[in-house]
């Protein structure tokens, strides 16, 4: 009986006691990062089967910060619906999955958004043959909508506010949305404008589709972790901030080695030449250097994945640095 009790005690301890996520990740040897099931530009396997995209880079940046190795990450796909349970249950260490930061998710669901890696807004895409030029002309349309998202709620609000009706066609993944839209089962597809650009880029003839001018919501997308593990939250937050600060300071993956001998104090602090900021995070002191070296700064990641030269053709817009007309802003590195 005593043995039985002690087994119970051990099991109970294993269930309830959580070491810090950072220690878990270090012990495991790789990072588990929740991403989309495939959204070109944000997280999707590229031609060689490697995950690529803005969100995938976010995951890799954290892996680099912890291990100094961009390959030490396992990408776990999640749908709009499965993402939160997957994170809450500890199946992934963080989500970088086009997830909108809202109060209820931050507070009620028990998560912590650590920043914004893409400022987005919800838009509509229709076949250009419909001749629609504004979302307010969509009375009676069938709208494809991903369930369990903030866009689903915004959609209902937008149509209610404008006093027009619609029929929702609930879908689970972006691919299902594409299929239904291209088959004409729905007239309109609505999701974040970046997602629409991504979907449009994947169409056989992108010119047949137009994204309507209305942006009906604020969708700040960012990585999130479980609430309460502040140490881990800090690691993810500053991995993102390091990429943004690197862009501010003009440090790129190309010139980062040369910048080691810069005379700008903040550059030296960021790259770990001065100060012990890495130790504060319980990381190695060159963590930010490694992120910039292996992933690049925010601008490099943006231009490579979603920028004007990619099929998505999304201009920097709101996502430009605060010094360049956007709202991208990171707290000072000191």
């Amino acid at each position, binding site marked *: 009986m005593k043995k039985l009790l002690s087994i119970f005690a051990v099991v109970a301890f294993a269930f*309830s006691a959580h070491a810090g996520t950072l220690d878990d990740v270090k012990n495991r040897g790789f990072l588990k990062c929740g991403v989309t099931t495939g959204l070109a530009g944000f997280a999707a396997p590229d031609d060689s089967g490697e995950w690529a995209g803005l969100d995938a880079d976010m995951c890799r940046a954290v892996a680099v910060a912890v291990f100094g190795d961009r390959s030490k990450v396992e990408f776990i796909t999640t749908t709009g619906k499965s993402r939160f349970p997957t994170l809450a249950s500890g199946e992934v260490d963080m989500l970088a999955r086009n997830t909108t930061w809202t109060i209820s998710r931050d507070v009620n669901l028990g998560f912590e958004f650590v920043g914004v890696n893409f400022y987005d807004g919800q838009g509509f895409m229709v076949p250009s043959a419909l001749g629609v030029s504004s979302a307010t002309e969509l009375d009676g349309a069938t709208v494809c909508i991903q369930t*369990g998202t903030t866009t689903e709620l915004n959609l*209902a*609000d937008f149509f209610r506010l404008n006093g027009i009706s619609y029929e929702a*066609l609930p879908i689970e993944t972006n691919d299902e949305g594409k299929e239904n839209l291209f088959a004409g089962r729905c007239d309109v597809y609505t999701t974040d404008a970046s997602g629409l650009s991504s979907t449009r880029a994947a169409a056989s003839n992108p010119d047949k589709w137009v994204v309507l001018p209305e942006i009906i919501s604020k969708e700040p997308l960012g990585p999130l972790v479980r609430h*309460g593990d502040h140490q881990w939250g800090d690691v993810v937050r500053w991995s993102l901030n390091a990429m943004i600060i690197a862009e501010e300071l003009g440090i790129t993956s190309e010139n980062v080695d040369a910048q080691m001998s810069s005379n700008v104090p903040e550059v030296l602090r960021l790259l770990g030449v001065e100060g012990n900021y890495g130790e504060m995070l319980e990381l190695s002191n060159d963590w930010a250097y490694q992120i910039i070296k292996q992933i690049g700064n925010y601008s490099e990641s943006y231009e490579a994945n979603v920028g004007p030269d990619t099929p998505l053709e999304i201009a920097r817009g709101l996502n430009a640095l605060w010094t360049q007309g956007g709202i991208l802003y990171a707290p000072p590195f000191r």
Partner: protein
Amino acid sequence: MRSNLGFFSDEKFRSIFFQTLVVGLFALGLFFVISTTSYNLEKRNIATGWSFLQNPAGFDISFSPFLEFKSTDTHLKVYFVGVLNTLLVSITGCIAATILGFILGIVRLSSNWLLSRLVYIYVEFSRNVPLLLQIILWYSILIQLPRVKQSLQVLDVFYISNRGLYSPRPIFESGFSYVLIAIVLAFISSFLINRWAKKRQDKTGQQFPVFSSSIGLIFIVPLILFFILGSPLSFEHPELKGFNFKGGLVIRPEFIAMFLALSIYTAAFISEIVRAGIMSVSKGQREASAAIGLKQTWIMRLIIIPQALRVIVPPLTSQYLNLTKNSSLGIAVGYADLVHGFGGISLNQTGQAIECMAIVMATYLSISLTISFFMNIYNRSIQFKEK
């Protein structure tokens, strides 16, 4: 030896001891699960409780044929819409699967080689391909139908497109209720006639044309009344306006895909159950009834089927349960059933996973137990009554 074992040698004590032990371990396990869950929920700052049911849902459900649903309605209403949609596809699916299954089961036993082989192929195919794939297959076929602007027109009033099947909607005007009352009365009197005719036949051996008189009562009387009252029924025809058809009745492809897949899949199992039931009736029964000169159709209806039903009904019940539970796969094609709406969207928008799942599970349990309850009553009524 005996004294060493003490109480354990007593069979009664042993039995009580082990039963208590099992119950105790179960209770301990349950306590462990519940306390761990609540501990972790609290630790992760996840709010619990039932108050979210009264909050506005904030999203729309397009398929709600029985209740009007707006995005300002509560999550509780999402639940009711889901239950009704689950029941709709389950009940229609069970009816269709039963009819199809009985026909196929009988055809399978036919002496026509080609027919029986065809049914065999059908049964083996639909039993052995996962249901989820069949649902997706039907849906993919349905969304390849013409687009709404190029709808196929059938008989001038039905429109078929990948948005569904549009048909005229009947509008009942004042006076139509009398017709409905007439139909109900006709059903009741047909039932009474049937009983009276049976009694008379038992007593005198004379037969009464029950079937034709019932048809007359149920169809012709209300029809005459309908015309006397000046046809109090009109139709609202669907019209293509803007993006979609407006007005009329519509059956969505999501529903059709679910209905077809569920009934065709389950009918394959039911046909095998029916075949087994019929084959379980001994050959002598058929030969004996042929010997006293009964017609072929009578032999089936009066001798074989009633005996076969005793074998058929218990496994048939479990097929009904399977179909109902399988309807939860509606999520694959966006059919707004209980799992999709309440167990999916509400769960995700509120984050109350444990509460939503508990409610959904309890609901499926209640539906299944209700089906079992009625099927057991029916089963008892057809069992061999020993006199």
